[in-house]
Protein backbone atom coordinates (compact mmCIF):
# COMPACT_ATOMS: atom_id res chain seq x y z
CA UNK A 1 0.00 0.00 0.00
CA UNK A 2 2.98 2.29 0.13
CA UNK A 3 4.39 2.72 -3.32
CA UNK A 4 4.24 1.51 -6.89
CA UNK A 5 0.51 0.95 -7.09
CA UNK A 6 0.80 0.08 -10.77
CA UNK A 7 2.64 -3.11 -9.88
CA UNK A 8 -0.65 -4.73 -9.04
CA UNK A 9 -1.78 -5.14 -12.60
CA UNK A 10 -5.39 -5.88 -11.95
CA UNK A 11 -7.12 -6.23 -15.26
CA UNK A 12 -10.48 -4.61 -15.68
CA UNK A 13 -12.71 -5.20 -18.70
CA UNK A 14 -12.65 -2.84 -21.62
CA UNK A 15 -11.75 0.50 -19.98
CA UNK A 16 -8.15 -0.58 -20.18
CA UNK A 17 -8.15 -0.35 -23.96
CA UNK A 18 -9.14 3.32 -24.29
CA UNK A 19 -5.98 4.76 -22.67
CA UNK A 20 -3.80 2.37 -24.67
CA UNK A 21 -5.48 3.30 -27.94
CA UNK A 22 -5.00 6.99 -27.13
CA UNK A 23 -1.33 6.32 -26.36
CA UNK A 24 -0.83 4.41 -29.62
CA UNK A 25 -2.37 7.24 -31.64
CA UNK A 26 -0.30 9.80 -29.75
CA UNK A 27 2.92 7.93 -30.48
CA UNK A 28 2.09 7.64 -34.19
CA UNK A 29 1.26 11.36 -34.39
CA UNK A 30 4.47 12.37 -32.64
CA UNK A 31 6.50 10.02 -34.83
CA UNK A 32 4.96 11.38 -38.00
CA UNK A 33 5.36 15.03 -37.07
CA UNK A 34 8.87 14.87 -35.70
CA UNK A 35 9.94 12.69 -38.62
CA UNK A 36 13.27 10.99 -38.41
CA UNK A 37 12.51 7.45 -37.19
CA UNK A 38 10.89 5.54 -40.05
CA UNK A 39 12.08 7.18 -43.28
CA UNK A 40 15.52 7.84 -41.85
CA UNK A 41 15.87 4.21 -40.80
CA UNK A 42 15.07 3.11 -44.35
CA UNK A 43 17.67 5.55 -45.74
CA UNK A 44 20.24 4.16 -43.28
CA UNK A 45 19.30 0.63 -44.37
CA UNK A 46 19.67 1.70 -48.02
CA UNK A 47 23.14 3.11 -47.39
CA UNK A 48 24.29 -0.10 -45.68
CA UNK A 49 22.96 -2.16 -48.58
CA UNK A 50 24.64 0.15 -51.10
CA UNK A 51 27.95 -0.05 -49.29
CA UNK A 52 28.01 -3.86 -49.36
CA UNK A 53 28.71 -4.38 -53.11
CA UNK A 54 31.25 -1.56 -52.98
CA UNK A 55 33.11 -3.33 -50.19
CA UNK A 56 32.66 -6.91 -51.42
CA UNK A 57 33.11 -6.29 -55.13
CA UNK A 58 30.82 -6.99 -58.08
CA UNK A 59 30.74 -10.78 -57.68
CA UNK A 60 27.02 -11.49 -58.13
CA UNK A 61 27.19 -15.08 -56.90
CA UNK A 62 28.94 -14.01 -53.70
CA UNK A 63 26.54 -11.11 -53.20
CA UNK A 64 23.52 -13.37 -53.61
CA UNK A 65 25.04 -15.73 -51.05
CA UNK A 66 25.63 -13.11 -48.36
CA UNK A 67 22.54 -11.01 -49.16
CA UNK A 68 20.24 -12.47 -46.46
CA UNK A 69 22.90 -11.93 -43.80
CA UNK A 70 23.68 -8.39 -44.94
CA UNK A 71 20.01 -7.45 -45.10
CA UNK A 72 19.43 -8.84 -41.63
CA UNK A 73 22.40 -7.00 -40.13
CA UNK A 74 21.26 -3.84 -41.89
CA UNK A 75 17.75 -4.21 -40.51
CA UNK A 76 19.11 -4.96 -37.03
CA UNK A 77 21.23 -1.80 -36.98
CA UNK A 78 18.45 0.31 -38.49
CA UNK A 79 16.07 -0.99 -35.81
CA UNK A 80 18.41 0.29 -33.10
CA UNK A 81 18.29 3.84 -34.47
CA UNK A 82 16.03 5.96 -32.38
CA UNK A 83 15.40 3.24 -29.82
CA UNK A 84 17.34 5.18 -27.18
CA UNK A 85 14.65 7.87 -27.27
CA UNK A 86 11.82 5.36 -26.82
CA UNK A 87 11.30 6.22 -23.15
CA UNK A 88 13.79 9.04 -22.68
CA UNK A 89 11.52 11.82 -23.95
CA UNK A 90 8.73 10.65 -21.64
CA UNK A 91 11.15 10.41 -18.75
CA UNK A 92 12.40 13.95 -19.26
CA UNK A 93 9.10 15.73 -19.82
CA UNK A 94 7.21 14.06 -16.98
CA UNK A 95 4.98 11.82 -19.11
CA UNK A 96 6.38 8.80 -17.29
CA UNK A 97 4.97 10.14 -13.99
CA UNK A 98 1.64 10.44 -15.74
CA UNK A 99 1.86 6.83 -16.95
CA UNK A 100 2.58 5.67 -13.40
CA UNK A 101 -0.52 7.47 -12.10
CA UNK A 102 -2.76 6.42 -14.96
CA UNK A 103 -3.89 3.17 -13.40
CA UNK A 104 -2.99 1.35 -16.62
CA UNK A 105 -0.32 -1.29 -15.99
CA UNK A 106 3.08 0.04 -17.05
CA UNK A 107 3.76 -3.26 -18.85
CA UNK A 108 0.89 -2.61 -21.26
CA UNK A 109 2.01 0.98 -21.77
CA UNK A 110 5.50 -0.27 -22.65
CA UNK A 111 4.03 -2.83 -25.04
CA UNK A 112 1.88 -0.18 -26.73
CA UNK A 113 4.85 2.13 -27.13
CA UNK A 114 6.88 -0.72 -28.64
CA UNK A 115 4.13 -1.56 -31.11
CA UNK A 116 3.88 2.06 -32.19
CA UNK A 117 7.66 2.29 -32.50
CA UNK A 118 7.75 -0.86 -34.60
CA UNK A 119 4.96 0.40 -36.84
CA UNK A 120 6.96 3.59 -37.40
CA UNK A 121 10.44 2.11 -37.87
CA UNK A 122 10.30 -1.69 -38.27
CA UNK A 123 7.44 -1.91 -40.75
CA UNK A 124 9.01 0.47 -43.32
CA UNK A 125 12.20 -1.63 -43.16
CA UNK A 126 10.23 -4.80 -43.87
CA UNK A 127 8.45 -3.09 -46.77
CA UNK A 128 11.75 -1.87 -48.25
CA UNK A 129 13.58 -5.18 -47.81
CA UNK A 130 12.47 -6.89 -51.08
CA UNK A 131 13.73 -3.93 -53.14
CA UNK A 132 17.02 -3.88 -51.29
CA UNK A 133 17.24 -7.66 -51.79
CA UNK A 134 17.16 -7.07 -55.54
CA UNK A 135 20.04 -4.62 -55.17
CA UNK A 136 22.12 -7.42 -53.65
CA UNK A 137 21.23 -9.85 -56.46
CA UNK A 138 19.09 -11.96 -54.14
CA UNK A 139 17.24 -14.53 -56.32
CA UNK A 140 13.58 -13.62 -56.80
CA UNK A 141 12.34 -16.81 -55.15
CA UNK A 142 14.17 -15.90 -51.91
CA UNK A 143 12.65 -12.42 -51.62
CA UNK A 144 9.47 -13.80 -50.06
CA UNK A 145 11.22 -15.77 -47.32
CA UNK A 146 13.51 -12.80 -46.57
CA UNK A 147 10.57 -10.42 -46.17
CA UNK A 148 8.60 -12.89 -44.06
CA UNK A 149 11.58 -13.54 -41.79
CA UNK A 150 12.06 -9.80 -41.27
CA UNK A 151 8.34 -9.31 -40.62
CA UNK A 152 8.43 -11.97 -37.92
CA UNK A 153 11.80 -10.97 -36.46
CA UNK A 154 11.89 -7.17 -36.33
CA UNK A 155 9.19 -6.89 -33.61
CA UNK A 156 11.44 -8.99 -31.38
CA UNK A 157 14.34 -6.59 -32.05
CA UNK A 158 12.22 -3.59 -31.03
CA UNK A 159 10.92 -5.38 -27.92
CA UNK A 160 14.35 -6.53 -26.78
CA UNK A 161 15.65 -3.03 -27.53
CA UNK A 162 12.97 -1.62 -25.25
CA UNK A 163 14.66 -3.32 -22.28
CA UNK A 164 17.87 -1.51 -23.11
CA UNK A 165 16.00 1.73 -23.70
CA UNK A 166 14.41 1.43 -20.26
CA UNK A 167 17.74 0.68 -18.59
CA UNK A 168 19.44 3.69 -20.20
CA UNK A 169 16.46 6.02 -19.79
CA UNK A 170 18.23 8.43 -17.47
CA UNK A 171 21.51 8.55 -19.41
CA UNK A 172 22.12 11.49 -21.70
CA UNK A 173 24.18 9.55 -24.20
CA UNK A 174 22.74 6.11 -23.73
CA UNK A 175 22.69 5.15 -27.41
CA UNK A 176 26.04 3.39 -27.48
CA UNK A 177 25.49 1.62 -24.17
CA UNK A 178 22.08 0.56 -25.45
CA UNK A 179 23.65 -1.06 -28.52
CA UNK A 180 26.28 -2.83 -26.43
CA UNK A 181 23.59 -4.15 -24.08
CA UNK A 182 21.12 -5.18 -26.73
CA UNK A 183 23.04 -6.54 -29.71
CA UNK A 184 24.22 -9.73 -27.91
CA UNK A 185 20.62 -10.42 -26.90
CA UNK A 186 19.57 -10.16 -30.54
CA UNK A 187 21.82 -13.02 -31.62
CA UNK A 188 19.17 -15.79 -31.44
CA UNK A 189 16.76 -13.75 -33.55
CA UNK A 190 19.56 -13.07 -36.04
CA UNK A 191 20.53 -16.76 -36.26
CA UNK A 192 17.06 -18.05 -36.99
CA UNK A 193 16.09 -14.99 -39.03
CA UNK A 194 18.98 -15.40 -41.46
CA UNK A 195 18.43 -19.15 -41.58
CA UNK A 196 14.82 -18.58 -42.59
CA UNK A 197 15.71 -15.78 -44.99
CA UNK A 198 18.27 -17.93 -46.79
CA UNK A 199 15.90 -20.81 -47.29
CA UNK A 200 14.43 -20.58 -50.78
CA UNK A 201 11.31 -22.60 -51.49
CA UNK A 202 12.34 -26.00 -52.81
CA UNK A 203 15.90 -25.75 -51.56
CA UNK A 204 17.62 -28.19 -49.24
CA UNK A 205 17.10 -26.08 -46.12
CA UNK A 206 13.53 -26.10 -44.87
CA UNK A 207 11.97 -22.66 -44.35
CA UNK A 208 9.47 -23.62 -41.69
CA UNK A 209 11.84 -24.81 -38.97
CA UNK A 210 13.94 -21.67 -38.42
CA UNK A 211 10.93 -19.47 -39.20
CA UNK A 212 8.78 -21.06 -36.50
CA UNK A 213 11.58 -20.78 -33.95
CA UNK A 214 11.93 -17.14 -34.93
CA UNK A 215 8.19 -16.62 -34.41
CA UNK A 216 8.52 -18.29 -31.01
CA UNK A 217 11.35 -15.91 -30.07
CA UNK A 218 9.17 -12.95 -31.05
CA UNK A 219 6.26 -14.25 -28.99
CA UNK A 220 8.59 -14.80 -26.06
CA UNK A 221 9.87 -11.22 -26.37
CA UNK A 222 6.28 -9.98 -26.66
CA UNK A 223 5.55 -11.35 -23.19
CA UNK A 224 8.90 -11.03 -21.45
CA UNK A 225 10.29 -7.74 -22.71
CA UNK A 226 7.45 -5.45 -21.53
CA UNK A 227 7.71 -6.92 -18.03
CA UNK A 228 11.48 -6.45 -17.93
CA UNK A 229 11.34 -2.96 -19.43
CA UNK A 230 8.58 -1.85 -17.07
CA UNK A 231 10.54 -3.13 -14.07
CA UNK A 232 13.61 -1.22 -15.30
CA UNK A 233 11.55 1.94 -15.80
CA UNK A 234 10.17 1.76 -12.26
CA UNK A 235 13.70 1.48 -10.90
CA UNK A 236 15.08 4.22 -13.10
CA UNK A 237 12.26 6.68 -12.51
CA UNK A 238 13.31 6.99 -8.89
Amino acid at each position, binding site marked *: *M*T*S*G*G*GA*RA*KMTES*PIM*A*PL*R*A*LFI*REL*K*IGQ*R*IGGGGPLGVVFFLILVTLTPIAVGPDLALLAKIAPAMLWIGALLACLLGLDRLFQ*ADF*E*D*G*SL*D*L*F*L*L*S*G*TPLELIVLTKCLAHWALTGLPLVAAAPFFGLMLALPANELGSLTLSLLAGTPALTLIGAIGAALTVSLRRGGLLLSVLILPLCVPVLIFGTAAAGAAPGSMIPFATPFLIECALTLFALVGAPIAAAAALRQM*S*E
Partner: protein
Amino acid sequence: MRLEASELAVERGGRIVFSNVSFAIQSGESLIVTGRNGAGKSTLLRALAGFLPLRGGEVSLTPLLEDSIAENIHYIGHADALKGALTVAENLSFFGALLRSGQGGLSVEDALAEVGLVPLADLPAAYLSAGQKRRASLAKLRIALRPVWLLDEPSNALDAAAQQAMETVMAAHLSAGGMIVAATHARLELAGRELRLGAAT
Protein backbone atom coordinates in the same frame (compact mmCIF):
# COMPACT_ATOMS: atom_id res chain seq x y z
CA MET B 1 -11.79 10.53 2.66
CA ARG B 2 -8.61 10.74 4.64
CA LEU B 3 -5.00 10.90 3.48
CA GLU B 4 -2.61 9.89 6.16
CA ALA B 5 1.16 9.74 6.18
CA SER B 6 2.88 8.32 9.19
CA GLU B 7 6.56 8.64 9.97
CA LEU B 8 7.68 8.90 6.36
CA ALA B 9 11.38 8.67 5.63
CA VAL B 10 12.96 8.93 2.21
CA GLU B 11 16.54 8.34 1.22
CA ARG B 12 18.04 9.77 -1.95
CA GLY B 13 21.55 8.94 -3.06
CA GLY B 14 22.50 7.58 0.35
CA ARG B 15 21.32 10.68 2.20
CA ILE B 16 18.20 10.78 4.33
CA VAL B 17 16.22 13.67 2.85
CA PHE B 18 13.71 13.69 5.67
CA SER B 19 12.44 11.32 8.29
CA ASN B 20 9.59 11.19 10.75
CA VAL B 21 7.20 13.24 8.64
CA SER B 22 3.61 12.61 9.65
CA PHE B 23 0.40 14.35 8.75
CA ALA B 24 -3.23 13.58 8.07
CA ILE B 25 -5.75 15.55 6.06
CA GLN B 26 -9.45 15.00 5.60
CA SER B 27 -11.68 15.74 2.64
CA GLY B 28 -11.80 19.47 2.06
CA GLU B 29 -8.51 20.16 3.76
CA SER B 30 -5.24 21.26 2.34
CA LEU B 31 -1.65 21.08 3.45
CA ILE B 32 1.00 23.58 2.44
CA VAL B 33 4.49 22.13 2.50
CA THR B 34 7.17 24.74 3.06
CA GLY B 35 10.86 24.70 3.74
CA ARG B 36 14.14 25.98 2.38
CA ASN B 37 15.59 24.73 -0.92
CA GLY B 38 16.55 21.10 -0.64
CA ALA B 39 14.44 20.47 2.43
CA GLY B 40 12.62 17.73 0.54
CA LYS B 41 9.36 19.34 -0.53
CA SER B 42 9.40 17.85 -4.02
CA THR B 43 10.70 14.58 -2.65
CA LEU B 44 7.79 14.40 -0.22
CA LEU B 45 5.26 14.92 -3.01
CA ARG B 46 6.93 12.35 -5.24
CA ALA B 47 7.00 9.89 -2.36
CA LEU B 48 3.30 10.48 -1.69
CA ALA B 49 2.58 9.84 -5.38
CA GLY B 50 4.40 6.53 -5.10
CA PHE B 51 7.26 7.42 -7.46
CA LEU B 52 9.91 7.01 -4.78
CA PRO B 53 10.41 4.07 -2.48
CA LEU B 54 9.86 4.86 1.19
CA ARG B 55 12.62 4.03 3.58
CA GLY B 56 10.15 3.98 6.38
CA GLY B 57 6.58 4.89 7.21
CA GLU B 58 3.35 4.48 5.33
CA VAL B 59 0.95 6.43 3.15
CA SER B 60 -2.69 5.46 3.32
CA LEU B 61 -5.88 6.72 1.77
CA THR B 62 -9.18 5.64 3.25
CA PRO B 63 -11.61 4.65 1.90
CA LEU B 64 -9.82 3.49 -1.21
CA LEU B 65 -12.23 3.76 -4.14
CA GLU B 66 -9.90 2.64 -6.93
CA ASP B 67 -7.47 -0.25 -7.10
CA SER B 68 -4.51 1.75 -5.94
CA ILE B 69 -3.65 5.06 -4.33
CA ALA B 70 -2.06 6.19 -7.60
CA GLU B 71 -5.42 6.29 -9.35
CA ASN B 72 -6.73 8.83 -6.84
CA ILE B 73 -3.86 11.21 -7.34
CA HIS B 74 -3.10 14.12 -9.62
CA TYR B 75 0.56 15.07 -9.57
CA ILE B 76 1.73 18.37 -11.04
CA GLY B 77 5.51 18.48 -10.97
CA HIS B 78 8.16 20.67 -12.51
CA ALA B 79 7.82 18.87 -15.86
CA ASP B 80 4.63 19.53 -17.77
CA ALA B 81 4.31 16.22 -19.66
CA LEU B 82 3.35 18.21 -22.78
CA LYS B 83 4.55 16.92 -26.13
CA GLY B 84 5.82 19.76 -28.28
CA ALA B 85 4.81 18.07 -31.53
CA LEU B 86 1.15 17.79 -30.50
CA THR B 87 -1.29 20.67 -30.30
CA VAL B 88 -2.50 21.88 -26.92
CA ALA B 89 -5.91 20.27 -27.47
CA GLU B 90 -4.34 16.94 -28.52
CA ASN B 91 -2.16 16.96 -25.42
CA LEU B 92 -5.13 17.57 -23.17
CA SER B 93 -7.35 14.97 -24.78
CA PHE B 94 -4.52 12.47 -24.35
CA PHE B 95 -4.31 13.35 -20.63
CA GLY B 96 -8.06 12.80 -20.45
CA ALA B 97 -7.93 9.40 -22.15
CA LEU B 98 -4.92 8.22 -20.16
CA LEU B 99 -6.28 9.35 -16.79
CA ARG B 100 -9.74 7.97 -17.60
CA SER B 101 -11.66 11.21 -17.54
CA GLY B 102 -14.95 9.36 -18.02
CA GLN B 103 -16.62 10.28 -14.76
CA GLY B 104 -17.57 13.92 -14.66
CA GLY B 105 -14.41 15.71 -15.72
CA LEU B 106 -14.57 18.80 -17.89
CA SER B 107 -14.34 18.42 -21.66
CA VAL B 108 -11.13 19.54 -23.32
CA GLU B 109 -12.85 22.70 -24.64
CA ASP B 110 -14.19 23.67 -21.21
CA ALA B 111 -10.87 23.00 -19.53
CA LEU B 112 -9.07 25.10 -22.13
CA ALA B 113 -11.57 27.90 -21.62
CA GLU B 114 -11.01 27.77 -17.89
CA VAL B 115 -7.25 28.23 -18.19
CA GLY B 116 -7.65 30.77 -20.98
CA LEU B 117 -5.94 28.79 -23.73
CA VAL B 118 -8.80 28.49 -26.24
CA PRO B 119 -7.12 30.67 -28.91
CA LEU B 120 -4.03 28.45 -28.70
CA ALA B 121 -5.85 25.11 -28.82
CA ASP B 122 -4.50 24.21 -32.27
CA LEU B 123 -0.98 25.47 -31.69
CA PRO B 124 1.78 22.87 -31.17
CA ALA B 125 2.67 22.90 -27.48
CA ALA B 126 6.32 23.58 -28.31
CA TYR B 127 5.42 27.21 -29.05
CA LEU B 128 3.80 27.90 -25.68
CA SER B 129 5.47 30.14 -23.11
CA ALA B 130 6.45 28.71 -19.73
CA GLY B 131 3.34 30.15 -18.10
CA GLN B 132 1.07 28.86 -20.84
CA LYS B 133 2.58 25.38 -20.53
CA ARG B 134 1.92 25.53 -16.82
CA ARG B 135 -1.70 26.46 -17.44
CA ALA B 136 -2.10 23.59 -19.92
CA SER B 137 -0.62 21.27 -17.34
CA LEU B 138 -3.00 22.55 -14.65
CA ALA B 139 -5.94 21.96 -17.00
CA LYS B 140 -5.51 18.22 -16.55
CA LEU B 141 -6.62 18.63 -12.93
CA ARG B 142 -10.03 19.54 -14.30
CA ILE B 143 -10.21 17.06 -17.18
CA ALA B 144 -9.97 14.01 -14.97
CA LEU B 145 -11.61 14.09 -11.54
CA ARG B 146 -9.32 12.79 -8.84
CA PRO B 147 -9.63 13.60 -5.15
CA VAL B 148 -6.00 14.10 -4.16
CA TRP B 149 -3.98 16.87 -5.79
CA LEU B 150 -0.23 16.92 -5.22
CA LEU B 151 1.02 20.24 -6.54
CA ASP B 152 4.70 21.08 -6.72
CA GLU B 153 5.12 24.86 -7.03
CA PRO B 154 1.80 25.17 -8.87
CA SER B 155 2.07 28.92 -9.29
CA ASN B 156 5.46 28.78 -10.99
CA ALA B 157 5.59 31.02 -14.09
CA LEU B 158 1.93 31.99 -13.74
CA ASP B 159 0.89 35.64 -14.00
CA ALA B 160 -1.27 37.27 -11.34
CA ALA B 161 -4.55 36.61 -13.14
CA ALA B 162 -3.76 32.96 -13.81
CA GLN B 163 -2.63 32.51 -10.24
CA GLN B 164 -5.92 33.92 -8.99
CA ALA B 165 -7.84 31.62 -11.34
CA MET B 166 -5.84 28.68 -10.06
CA GLU B 167 -6.63 29.58 -6.46
CA THR B 168 -10.33 29.75 -7.31
CA VAL B 169 -10.16 26.26 -8.84
CA MET B 170 -8.29 24.96 -5.82
CA ALA B 171 -10.85 26.42 -3.44
CA ALA B 172 -13.66 24.85 -5.49
CA HIS B 173 -11.88 21.50 -5.38
CA LEU B 174 -11.59 21.71 -1.60
CA SER B 175 -15.22 22.70 -1.10
CA ALA B 176 -16.22 19.74 -3.28
CA GLY B 177 -14.45 17.44 -0.83
CA GLY B 178 -11.04 17.16 -2.45
CA MET B 179 -7.63 17.30 -0.85
CA ILE B 180 -4.59 19.34 -1.80
CA VAL B 181 -0.98 18.96 -0.78
CA ALA B 182 1.01 21.83 -2.25
CA ALA B 183 4.69 22.59 -1.97
CA THR B 184 5.36 26.24 -2.55
CA HIS B 185 7.40 29.29 -1.72
CA ALA B 186 4.72 31.63 -2.98
CA ARG B 187 1.89 32.77 -0.77
CA LEU B 188 -1.18 30.74 -1.63
CA GLU B 189 -4.65 31.90 -0.66
CA LEU B 190 -5.52 28.55 0.81
CA ALA B 191 -6.93 27.97 4.21
CA GLY B 192 -4.76 25.07 5.16
CA ARG B 193 -2.30 23.84 7.65
CA GLU B 194 1.38 24.19 7.09
CA LEU B 195 3.97 21.46 7.21
CA ARG B 196 7.44 22.85 7.60
CA LEU B 197 10.18 20.54 6.40
CA GLY B 198 13.80 20.78 7.33
CA ALA B 199 13.32 22.35 10.73
CA ALA B 200 13.76 19.08 12.55
CA THR B 201 16.84 17.74 10.79
